[in-house]
């Protein structure tokens, strides 16, 4: 088995990238470089082909960079048509929220060109947890018997969700008082103690900082992850944003991630970042920074009326009129690609 890991910042993923594959005798391929521009947006797929990669791990931002340079997935399709990507069984995404559009796009590509049943698995964890807190297990039987060769069909994915809680992690969604909220309602994501054995139990020579940083907010009852999101009726966890990225608009709480997701369903928008702008009436309004996926980048910071209206409409339809954007700035992507640097 070979694993391809693409990670710009390696340290916090060292356990997943190197130690965990070693436990099962797997080979890890570490690719240190850009997903685009060296020489093109097909580099990842070339490595999958050449090293017969079975499981790939990367950040959604790398896939967005590829989408920007190769909007029609020509590199993936070309290698796929040659049957060169048949070894790939799973594409794991972590490091930040994966919006459904990127998950759906790659799920289609995997179904078309990769191993039977190949999946895109969005998963969520942190340096502190030491192993995935949520995800979809590809070999769930190994939880009972480490050497099990059984491969029961994995649970299905829900694009936009980071899967279900992994064994050992008790994940809950609570309000600011630490009280659990109803399924489907957004709140602070916390964990019951004890955590799984992979997780931290203190900070090096700084118990007080450990308490203040993680335990104090909910009075020792929950470990604060600093993330906000919800759990649906089937137990699938969606991480929407960091808790301090929640905007309060006229007493309605919106996640910047959800609004960004609505904005990026516009075909001309490559990426969006939403922040709160102060507003005399409503406290704050969502304000969007967008980068365009069009080949010609307009110079001005203010989007033309057509684009502005279309994006506004998407936000109103998908989130609600109260989440209407207070303003929008467009610009070029701060891209990893050499042409842009």
């Amino acid at each position, binding site marked *: 088995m070979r694993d391809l890991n693409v990670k710009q910042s390696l340290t916090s993923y060292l356990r997943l990238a190197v130690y965990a594959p070693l436990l099962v005798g797997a080979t890890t391929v570490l690719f240190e470089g850009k997903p685009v521009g060296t020489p093109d947006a097909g580099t990842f797929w070339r490595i999958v082909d050449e090293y017969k990669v079975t499981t790939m791990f990367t950040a959604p931002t790398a896939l967005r960079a590829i989408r920007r340079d190769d909007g029609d997935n020509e590199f993936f399709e070309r290698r796929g048509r040659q049957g060169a990507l048949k070894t790939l069984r799973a594409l794991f995404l972590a490091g930040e929220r994966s919006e459904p559009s990127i998950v759906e796009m790659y799920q289609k590509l995997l179904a078309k060109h990769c191993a039977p049943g190949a999946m895109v698995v969005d998963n969520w964890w942190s340096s502190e947890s030491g192993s995935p807190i949520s995800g979809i297990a590809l070999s769930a039987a190994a939880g009972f018997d480490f050497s099990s060769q059984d491969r029961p069909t994995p649970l299905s994915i829900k694009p936009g969700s980071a899967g279900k809680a992994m064994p050992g992690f008790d994940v809950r969604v609570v309000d600011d008082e630490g009280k659990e909220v109803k399924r489907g309602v957004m709140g602070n994501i916390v964990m019951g103690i004890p955590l799984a054995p992979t997780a931290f139990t203190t900070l090096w020579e700084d118990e007080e900082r450990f308490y203040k940083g993680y335990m104090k907010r909910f009075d020792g009852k929950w470990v604060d992850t600093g993330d906000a999101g919800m759990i649906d009726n089937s137990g699938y966890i969606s991480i929407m944003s960091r808790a301090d990225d929640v905007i309060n608009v006229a007493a309605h709480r919106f996640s910047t991630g959800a609004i960004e997701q609505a904005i990026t369903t516009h075909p001309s928008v490559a990426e969006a*970042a939403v922040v709160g702008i102060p*507003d*005399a009436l409503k406290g704050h309004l969502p304000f969007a920074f967008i980068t365009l996926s069009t080949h010609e980048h307009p110079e*001005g*910071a203010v989007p033309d009326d057509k684009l502005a209206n279309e994006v506004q409409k998407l936000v109103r339809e998908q989130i609600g009129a109260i989440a209407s954007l207070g303003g929008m700035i467009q610009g070029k992507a701060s891209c990893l690609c050499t042409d842009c640097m």
Partner: protein
Amino acid sequence: MIPKTRSGKTLRRVLRDLIENATHDEFDKQVAVPSTIEDQEAVTVAREKVREYFKVKGKDLHKATEARAKL
């Protein structure tokens, strides 16, 4: 234009600070940028875009809700 960390996380706080400063007419005020930023230049680009947006469109649209103490 959208600043990110090396591991690909969007630095919304930086953008939020730039926007808030703009509502106070403080376009050039320093904002705290983490050392893990991928491309420092993205902040400069965002700052100029914010300035342009406020000049062209946002000037009368967005006002700070509380005046800042002049120190």
